[in-house]
């Protein structure tokens, strides 16, 4: 069966686009061939900086003939209908149609259409130009004379030539002839730009790849990567060093060369005073080079770096290594300048006094000065949420409130919050935004900040995702929560919520961060009070004007929505942890649907997270104007995420017991009966009247429900969910006996209403813990 070789050779394609482009080419070509009725055995794509190549094996030489019958109108149909049929079937006269008979419908026309198969070459010649014209490059361009006219060909960079050959193994392949904007497909390509500038005539993939290799082009990107990686490791090793591996850089570098040659360069030891991360990023971002360490070192870098050239230089690469060394030195001089500048006074200190006072900054310290400048410059955080300065003020006040709850020192948390964003004004972060936080920490340590404050400057950005580390130092926890909660409440207030796949402010990640930070540190925090504190004390002055949803009277709806956003993140989190989602739903459904404006905040010692019963000593509420109204509403507003988790755990353990299973069955049975009767409109007594009991089982169940309910309520007030479950478990026996010995639907209406009321008491009692109707099984 014949094979197809396609090469699109262009000027240098950006490294980051090559892999996907080659994949797109394969998909578009194979899809197109299949759609045209051809099949193939295998297709492999290749790429270099200057070419996308496709090797398709075992393609049919022709597509099959296709015969089809097209049903038409009745022979008695009006002329118009028949004319339409002729047009759609491609016939010129109705005599060309056949007449079929149907016992019910009578005679009707049928067109016999046969499409003869086409030669694969013809299909290919028709297919490829369309693919080239509609190729999905992220950014494409026009070029040359042709670009004078509208609609000229677009490609990622000028397309230079096309190779397209087709033919069976045993015969000489032919060039598939097509032309696009003056570029005619042929069998000629070119090798390495400098080593082998001459034309190369190719027949099929085997000689193509071999001739390219001889012309100093390694066609396979994964092989280029392998060569670079192993040569780099060996070169480092031979010099007593270890390569600092970097997959993304390796991928990029392999897309910058056709003939990789690995070389080593060096810079002065003095530059090693710059933090390792800054050196690595400087050399990587600007020079696309790898850094190395002395073997056995884990942190510090060596002063040698590894570069990948695209030629086998006449002098063995001395000039190249020397030249790269010069550029790296110049870049590191800049980095060193940034690093030292950041540790010195700002030139415009006199203008920063007001901002310094506003935040209680120590203007003798470099990082404090940077925070003052961040405020002074009025850098926007979000048009509707104000400046970075205003944001830091909010984070500071939130951190101050959250600190005692998470066991952090208030002064330290405030200090960390005030400095949290200061490094955005440093030169190093200006150059490498990905170092935000990490640089804040380094500069904070250099100016003698408390280690917890310094750590918080970096860790308050954490966790960045489901697998990132959660901060554990109480100061970091306080600032991390304050930062993320400010963002979430703020963006909800201006109605910038994530929609579908769009989440430009990474709010899902922030909410998951809050969930993980609270739960993995065992922190009890009522989110409701935080929401209202933000709204009453922190919201930007003009927020009401921001969106219709930022109005005060929209608050309750907004907060319910935000809380359910947290619940969704919590569900995802718990599900990933292996929790049953029906239990989560059952626990969430047992809570009141709206948030009380006042709420509770409390904590247990951080670092816990174990499943021992909750302690009873609670520090007083930290949020002003909020009484620690713990107890009567304790389990119902569902704004305390850790408590939800505890309830899910307790419920899960309970349902694993025999008592739990039976109680669930009994409760469900009762609830079903009740629901059915309620639907019919059967009266249910407002309260249970023992005088109406006829059976012993009724008395026993009533006594048990009374007892269990008060016990469970007491346990829940103490937030001891296991005890609450235990209290409910004694209901199992009386519930079972009740259903065994008592017919709910008694003839006496009063007795029936009373029994239904008794059933509703079971539901009320269990509802304290979870909505059992949501539980599966």
């Amino acid at each position, binding site marked *: 069966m014949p094979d197809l070789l396609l090469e699109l050779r262009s000027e240098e394609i950006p490294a980051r686009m090559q892999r996907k482009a080659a994949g797109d080419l394969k998909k578009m070509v194979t899809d197109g061939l299949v759609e045209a009725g051809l099949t193939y055995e295998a297709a492999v794509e290749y790429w270099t900086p200057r070419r996308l190549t496709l090797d398709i094996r075992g393609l049919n030489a022709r597509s099959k003939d296709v015969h089809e019958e097209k049903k038409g109108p009745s022979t008695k149909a009006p002329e118009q209908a028949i004319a339409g049929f002729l047009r759609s079937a491609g016939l010129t006269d109705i005599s060309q149609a056949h007449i079929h008979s149907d016992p019910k419908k009578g005679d009707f026309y049928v067109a016999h259409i046969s499409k003869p198969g086409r030669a694969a070459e013809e299909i290919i010649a028709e297919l490829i130009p369309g693919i080239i014209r509609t190729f999905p490059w992220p950014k494409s361009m*026009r070029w040359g004379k042709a670009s004078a006219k509208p609609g000229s060909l677009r490609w990622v960079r000028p397309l230079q030539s096309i190779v397209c050959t087709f033919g069976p193994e045993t015969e000489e392949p032919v060039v598939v002839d097509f032309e696009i904007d003056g570029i005619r497909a042929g069998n000629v390509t070119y090798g390495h730009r400098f080593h082998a500038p001459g034309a190369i005539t190719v027949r099929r993939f085997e000689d193509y790849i071999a001739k390219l290799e001889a012309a100093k082009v390694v066609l396979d990107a994964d092989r280029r990567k392998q060569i670079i990686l192993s040569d780099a490791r060996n070169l480092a090793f031979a010099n007593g060093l270890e390569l600092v591996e970097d997959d993304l850089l390796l991928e990029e570098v392999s897309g910058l060369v056709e003939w990789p040659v690995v070389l080593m360069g060096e810079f002065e030891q003095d530059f090693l005073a710059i933090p390792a991360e800054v050196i690595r990023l400087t050399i990587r971002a600007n020079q696309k080079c790898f850094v190395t360490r002395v073997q056995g070192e884990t942190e510090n870098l060596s002063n040698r770096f590894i570069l990948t050239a695209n030629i086998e230089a006449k002098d063995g690469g001395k000039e*190249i290594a020397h030249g*790269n060394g010069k550029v790296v030195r110049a870049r590191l001089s800049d980095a060193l300048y940034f690093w030292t500048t950041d540790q010195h006074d700002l030139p415009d200190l006199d203008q920063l006094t007001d901002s310094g006072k506003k935040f209680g900054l120590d203007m003798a310290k470099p990082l404090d000065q940077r925070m003052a400048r961040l405020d002074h410059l009025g850098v926007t955080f979000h048009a509707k949420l104000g400046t970075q300065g205003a944001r830091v003020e909010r984070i500071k006040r939130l951190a101050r409130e959250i600190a005692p709850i998470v066991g952090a020192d208030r002064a330290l948390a405030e200090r960390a919050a005030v400095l949290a964003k200061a490094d955005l004004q440093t030169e190093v972060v200006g150059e490498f935004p990905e170092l935000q936080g990490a640089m804040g920490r380094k500069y904070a340590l250099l100016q003698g900040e408390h280690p917890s404050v310094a750590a918080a400057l970096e860790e308050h950005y954490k966790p960045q995702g489901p697998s990132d580390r959660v901060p554990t130092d109480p100061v970091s926890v306080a600032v991390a929560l304050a930062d993320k909660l400010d963002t979430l409440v703020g963006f909800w207030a201006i109605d910038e919520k994530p929609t579908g796949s769009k989440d430009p402010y990474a709010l899902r990640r922030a909410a998951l961060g809050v969930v993980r930070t609270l739960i993995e540190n065992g922190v009890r925090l009522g989110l409701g009070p935080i929401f209202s504190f933000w709204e009453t004390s922190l919201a930007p002055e003009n927020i009401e004007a921001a969106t219709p949803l930022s109005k005060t009277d929209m608050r309750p709806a907004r907060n319910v929505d935000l809380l359910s956003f947290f619940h969704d993140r919590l569900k995802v989190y718990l599900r990933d942890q292996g929790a049953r989602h029906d239990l989560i739903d059952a626990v969430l459904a047992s809570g009141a649907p709206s948030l009380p404006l006042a709420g509770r905040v409390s904590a247990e010692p951080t670092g816990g997270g174990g499943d021992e019963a909750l302690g009873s000593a609670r520090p007083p509420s930290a949020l002003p104007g909020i009484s620690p109204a713990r107890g009567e509403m304790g389990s119902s507003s569902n704004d305390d995420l850790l408590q939800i988790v505890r309830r899910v755990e307790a419920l899960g353990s309970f349902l694993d017991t025999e008592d739990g299973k039976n109680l669930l069955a009994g409760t469900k049975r009762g609830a079903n009966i009740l629901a059915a009767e309620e639907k019919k409109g059967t009266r249910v007594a407002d309260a249970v009247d023992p005088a109406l009991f006829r059976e012993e089982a009724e008395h026993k169940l009533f006594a048990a429900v009374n007892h269990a309910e008060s016990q469970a309520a007491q346990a829940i007030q103490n937030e001891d969910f296991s005890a609450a479950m235990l209290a409910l478990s004694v209901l199992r026996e009386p519930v079972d006996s009740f259903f065994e010995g008592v017919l709910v639907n008694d003839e006496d209406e009063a007795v029936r209403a009373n029994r239904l009321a008794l059933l509703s008491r079971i539901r009320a009692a269990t509802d304290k813990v979870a909505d059992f109707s949501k539980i599966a099984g």
Partner: protein
Amino acid sequence: MTASLPAHMHPSRSFQGLILTLHNYWAEYGCVVLQPYDMEVGAGTFHPATTLRALGPKKWNAAYVQPSRRPKDGRYGENPNRLQHYYQYQVILKPNPSNLQELYLGSLAAIGIDPLLHDIRFVEDDWESPTLGAWGLGWECWCDGMEVSQFTYFQQVCGIECAPVAGELTYGLERLAMYVQGVDNVYDLNFNGREGDDKVTYGEVFLQAEQEYSRFNFEHANTAVLLRHFEDAEAECKALLDAGAPSSKDNQPLHKMVFPAYDQCIKASHVFNLLDARGVISVTERQSYILRVRNLAKACGEAFLQTDAGGFQLNDKAA
């Protein structure tokens, strides 16, 4: 291909020799070799020979040196790599010839860069000038890891689609000279290629000026006056465009005053750069200043298309 120069004018010995070699190379190709534009600009692209001539259908091949001023990059002569005044060598070919990469590599060979000794690379770099409303795709050209040129296929200039596309090559002359002369400090470049008493260095020519202009740019430029200059240039640009606009009443189908108007756009842009260096433009204001210059550039570009050089054909509209 290159006309022979005396040994002391070889690019590896002389800064001016480098310039002359490039002049010869591109003159040989057929470019008009222009002299620098006589106004302060931030880059060679601002020269009307690029900004305006990149528009319209007419063929245009030009090469020139353009002194470029970036007030913010001043370092009082203390940084060996950074200058607030430096030279760009600019080549503009419209439409771009299909072998533009080869032509560029030929120019490197002409100044003594052997591609089998030095690692020459084309690394993705999408170019954009917000103030000129211009963008294009191309590369940074690397020589042994150093960016020595910018290579751009203009797609849009002054907010107008380029038809046909022009290829633009911009060589950073000081960098390139430092490379071929093997010098680590720009001020040590040999300017005239002579040795001993006759040698003139780049520092002798420019160091004092760098120090003085750094003072001016960062400390002394009168911001009130500059702000006024900006307003004046903006107003003048608009007024000139209005005054020269085509008019059916006067049977005047062509625009009559594009180049003078564009000068005012250049002026506004440079004044903005000075104000920026003086640190009197806030982050939010920055955007609006850039937008104002861009609007001027756009209006000039549109006007240019209504001129002879812009390819406007009288008989198109005469009927």
